């Protein structure tokens, strides 16, 4: 489902972000990518959602070579992957329902279908009564649920979650983790979750890829937080 082979990334300003990254994620897998700030996690996500192109090596997702996409094809490619952000990134002037339906309007879905689908995903994330609220009227945990609802609305094969619990307290974080696990299990969505929250990684054990200074220092099938201090 996702395959990075010998990926190097060097930014124009000379910063080396990633060195020889090799990861293979199968369909339906749920993996963590962990590492401290500046370890290259964000770069890896940018390569996956087409924002940046690898300097060397290839990044493939849902059977598409992301680096080879033309600019105009990137938006279309992004419809295959849902992204959940730490800072939620909801459109502040749109209601919850409008935020979710925007992602569907983008793919030219018909109005009645959009309404039906928006209702469905709001049920999945447990916010069926918040459709007319604006993001600022919701708590952080609720906003993150809206983001997840938006990310899964067009049934992506891959869900990328960039520190989804970063702004939430432990109880809310646990709810979000359970929601992500449910989506992974129920719909077979491949989930790649970037985090540096050791408690989560230790509590919900899954395959864990550890990044440090742009290198993969560990890829543990059994999971658990690893600190790789030199």
């Amino acid at each position, binding site marked *: 489902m996702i395959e990075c082979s010998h990926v190097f990334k060097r930014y124009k300003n000379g910063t080396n972000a990633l060195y020889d990254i090799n990861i293979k994620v199968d369909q339906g897998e749920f993996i963590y990518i962990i590492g401290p700030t500046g370890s290259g996690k964000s770069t890896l996500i940018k390569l996956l959602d087409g924002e*940046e192109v690898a300097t060397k090596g290839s990044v493939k997702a849902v059977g598409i070579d992301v680096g080879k996409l033309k*600019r105009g094809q990137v938006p279309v490619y992004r*419809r295959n992957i849902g992204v959940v952000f730490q800072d939620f*990134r909801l459109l502040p002037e749109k209601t919850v329902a409008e935020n979710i339906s925007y992602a569907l309007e*983008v793919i030219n879905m018909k109005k009645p279908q959009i309404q039906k689908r928006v209702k469905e995903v709001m049920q999945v994330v447990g916010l069926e009564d918040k459709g007319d609220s604006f993001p600022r009227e919701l708590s952080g945990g609720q906003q993150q649920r809206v983001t997840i609802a938006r990310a899964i609305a067009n049934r992506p094969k891959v869900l990328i979650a960039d520190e989804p619990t970063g702004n939430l307290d432990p109880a809310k974080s646990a709810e979000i983790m359970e929601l992500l696990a449910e989506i992974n299990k129920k719909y077979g969505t491949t989930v790649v979750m970037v985090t540096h929250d050791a408690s989560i990684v230790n509590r919900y054990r899954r395959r864990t890829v550890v990044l440090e200074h742009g290198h993969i220092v560990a890829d543990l099938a059994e999971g658990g937080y690893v600190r790789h201090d030199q």
Partner: protein
Amino acid sequence: MISRPIKEGFSGVGRHWAMSISSAIAVTITLVIISVFLLLTWNVNNFTQNIESSLDIYASVDYDAENQEAALKKKIEAIDGVESVELSPKSAEFQAYLDSFSDERTKEAFEPYASDNPMHDAFYVKAADGSKIQSIADALYEMKNNNEGLYEISYGGQSTISIVDAMANIRKIGMILVIGLILLAIFLIQNTIKLTITARATEIEIMRNVGASNRFIRSPFLIEGVIIGILGAAVPIGLTIWGYIALYNNAGGILISNMFHLVEPYPFVYYVSGILLLMGIVVGFIGSWLSVTRYLRWKR
């Protein structure tokens, strides 16, 4: 779906009304200035045409050449830049001379001369446009000097020609100013909309994140720009219609002297309004195109 960008464009204006108003004011200010220049240039154009069309060259015929008038007329008509040539017989010239006096006694004093008319037959030569007057007059002088049957040439002379030249210059300067102001308006609006959009850069980023194509993102912003342009044009259009009609009525249709006739307000003000509206729309469209495109560039 064409309705989506329109709907979103309108709600964008509503949701960011403070920014929309400041952009619209930028449009308003420049369009008011443009309107003044348009009215001015148009009127100057009109003055010039009036003056040019009243610039006849007078060429009287030698007594000895009165039998060759048909040939003379042909010859004058052949001069480059001549639009028309009219022959006025000496009786008409005499009558016109008499008519130029307002008191009856002077007129009576001249009556006896009617039987022994001292006037000459005369050609009135019209130039196709003002710039040709000088060269036509020169050609006529040459005919006179070669004794080809002309007795006297007269025209407004250098002073009328300078007026015509001055008007042409004012017109040119006016046009350049209007074009400059349009560019300034685009720049102003681009900047204001850029501010609006900087505030909304996150919004655009989110749209890109969920897979919206550039066209999908851009179209509501363009509609927004057009709406702002129309809103911005409303006040200048009102001012133009009201202000020009007021000016026309107060001045009695003339400016300074009878030589400068103002353009009739109808349908003139509607033409100018149409131009202002069009400028508002175009400027709003281009302004938002330029600013939104900045945020749609892919760094890949």
